[in-house]
């Protein structure tokens, strides 16, 4: 039976993270989960709105949530951790700040009851695990050692998100283990990669992402599994520059979690967008096709 | 119910006339203060030792605990001609007797209903928390209730029987 799930793709998945959205849609199709986009969804304002105009930073996600509610959606899958955090924060503040509902209503001219459940990029696979499990072959990823990278956005701030163990998260590791791969014990699961500084502060991204790559490699990871397109872009697109700047050699594929699931399902790597990466993903895809 | 409401409006009218009559000759209300021995009574003492002046209308009756008071005692006070009542004890959680003031507070709800029933204004009975260290607060509480009762005018004659 097809499951219909509310969907907020967010801007990044539409464009620069096409590999992410491709693999997500492909894997969810495989398990018969249908994504229902919010009609006319728009950008949540990202850090730009949130850090320069607090009210706008709240009004944009509010408007999206209100549109979703109009459409009758009760839950919303938001793969981008930034978007999901903004949506959850909006719900939280609406419930905890008495003046906010009225303020938001007047800014958007829409009503919204803050009870739409937001599902993040890891939770979704936990949620549909019973659909995923029959489709995978655990042997496919048997020898693959990966570092599960949660990034800072998925767990911060813990008071509002209340997700997993905010300092030592394990949910993704559990999924990866169930897929048959071997999650390595490493230390930089939630360290920041430089996030939104991709373009505006390259130095920071190189510095921070380098440390993440270094720790993953030291702990024996052959690939890093990401669930945030910002993390993926920083670690993937900037990897060559990092290697040049710090005179190191990583060749570390940065794989999206749904891509890894797709591989475990035996889906063609191209359909999962694995050919769109900057760092070659052959290490992972070849390993898979060896058997 | 209906009768009750009628009676209330009549009472209110009578009260208003009463008050109007009495305010002209500088009405000095009689206020009975039931103070808990451990906190508010000591607070009143502190107001004294610090020579703080306050309205002279209150007459203090010392009780071991505000939990000692039942509504009948308060009603009796009105019957004997009190215009207002102050009940003051320890802060919540500070009760000398563990939870007496808490029990007292729960009973005030019932008492308030009773006041309404006999047609007395709720402001005629005031509750407060004054600790042994709050001489200043005691003065404020006394001055406030005196002001309030002066505004309300004399309590209508009430007969419990």
């Amino acid at each position: 039976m097809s499951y219909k799930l509310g969907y907020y793709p967010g801007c990044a998945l539409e464009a620069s993270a096409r590999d992410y959205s491709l693999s997500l849609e492909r894997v969810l199709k495989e398990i018969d989960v249908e994504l229902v986009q919010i009609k006319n969804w728009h950008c949540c304002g990202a850090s730009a709105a949130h850090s320069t105009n607090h009210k706008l930073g709240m009004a944009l996600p509010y408007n999206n949530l209100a549109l979703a509610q109009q459409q009758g959606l009760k839950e919303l899958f938001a793969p981008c951790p930034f978007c999901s955090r903004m949506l959850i924060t909006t719900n939280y503040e609406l419930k905890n700040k008495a003046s906010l509902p009225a303020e938001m209503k007047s800014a958007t001219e829409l009503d919204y009851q803050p009870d739409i459940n937001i599902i993040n990029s890891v939770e979704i696979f936990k949620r549909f695990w019973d659909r995923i499990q029959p489709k995978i072959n655990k042997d496919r990823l048997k020898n693959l050692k990966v570092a599960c990278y949660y990034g800072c956005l998925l767990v911060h701030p813990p008071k509002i998100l209340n997700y997993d163990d905010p300092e030592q998260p394990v949910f993704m590791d559990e999924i990866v283990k169930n897929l048959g791969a071997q999650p390595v014990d490493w230390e930089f699961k939630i360290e920041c990669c430089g996030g939104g500084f991709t373009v505006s502060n390259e130095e920071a991204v190189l510095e921070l992402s380098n440390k993440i790559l270094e720790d993953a490699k030291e702990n024996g990871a052959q690939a890093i599994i990401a669930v945030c397109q910002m993390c993926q872009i920083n670690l993937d697109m900037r990897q060559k520059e990092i290697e040049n700047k710090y005179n190191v050699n990583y060749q570390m594929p940065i794989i999206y979690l749904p891509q890894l699931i797709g591989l475990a399902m035996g889906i063609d790597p191209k359909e999962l967008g694995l050919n769109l990466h900057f760092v070659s993903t052959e290490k992972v895809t070849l390993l898979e096709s060896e058997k | 119910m209906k009768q009750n409401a009628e009676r209330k409006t009549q009472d209110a009218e009578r009260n208003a006339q009463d008050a109007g009559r009495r305010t002209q000759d500088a009405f000095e209300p009689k206020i009975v203060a039931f103070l808990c021995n451990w906190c508010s009574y000591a607070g009143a003492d502190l107001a004294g030792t610090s020579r703080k002046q306050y309205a002279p209308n209150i007459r203090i009756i010392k009780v071991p605990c505000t939990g000692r008071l039942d509504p009948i005692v308060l009603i009796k006070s009105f019957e004997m001609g009190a215009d207002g009542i102050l009940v003051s004890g320890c802060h919540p959680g500070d009760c000398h007797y563990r939870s007496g003031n808490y029990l007292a507070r729960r009973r005030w709800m019932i008492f308030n209903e009773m006041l309404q029933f006999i047609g007395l204004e709720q402001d005629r009975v005031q509750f407060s928390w004054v600790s042994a260290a709050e001489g200043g607060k005691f003065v404020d509480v006394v001055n406030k209730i005196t002001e309030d009762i002066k505004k309300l005018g004399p309590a209508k004659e009430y007969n419990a029987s």
Partner: protein
Amino acid sequence: MAESINLKNAPSFINEVQKSSGIKLRNCYQCGKCSASCPMVFQMDYPPSTLIRHAQLGLKEEVLTSKTIWSCVSCITCTARCPKEIDIAALMDVFREMSVKEKLATKEQAKIQKFHKSFLEVIRAHGRLYEMSLIIRYKLRTLALMQDVNKTPKMLFAGKLNLFPPKIENIEAIRKIFERCSE
């Protein structure tokens, strides 16, 4: 640096911050856990806890002209670990907002501001992010024209950059939200 700090302005600045953000600056007891958590300290002139100390002392100008507020990447690690429940990350937003309002941000610092500005312009115009437009606007502003040029063809080729702007129907409603929120 002034010879000694004038503490007269401290209460008004602390209150100003608290009023606009609800953040209780006085609660910070200077443990430094935020600073020790912060991945961006290497680019800051003062670590976050020192910035907060300056704010507690009412050194408004030091705070609003500091590099620190523009180096913060909003990872929220500081907030997550503060034992006194101070939302340092949000405080950074507040200071950036103040700094722009009071025109205290330098050109270099405003680079990020320019990125944000470009970003919001794109959202206002298209409702969704249109990266080509964002990159062009940002580059025109910062004149960092050569940055990432070598990446662009691969991104376009990989379908990672849309050549055409996104289209949504309710763009007018979104523009209105922008207007109401900018009042």
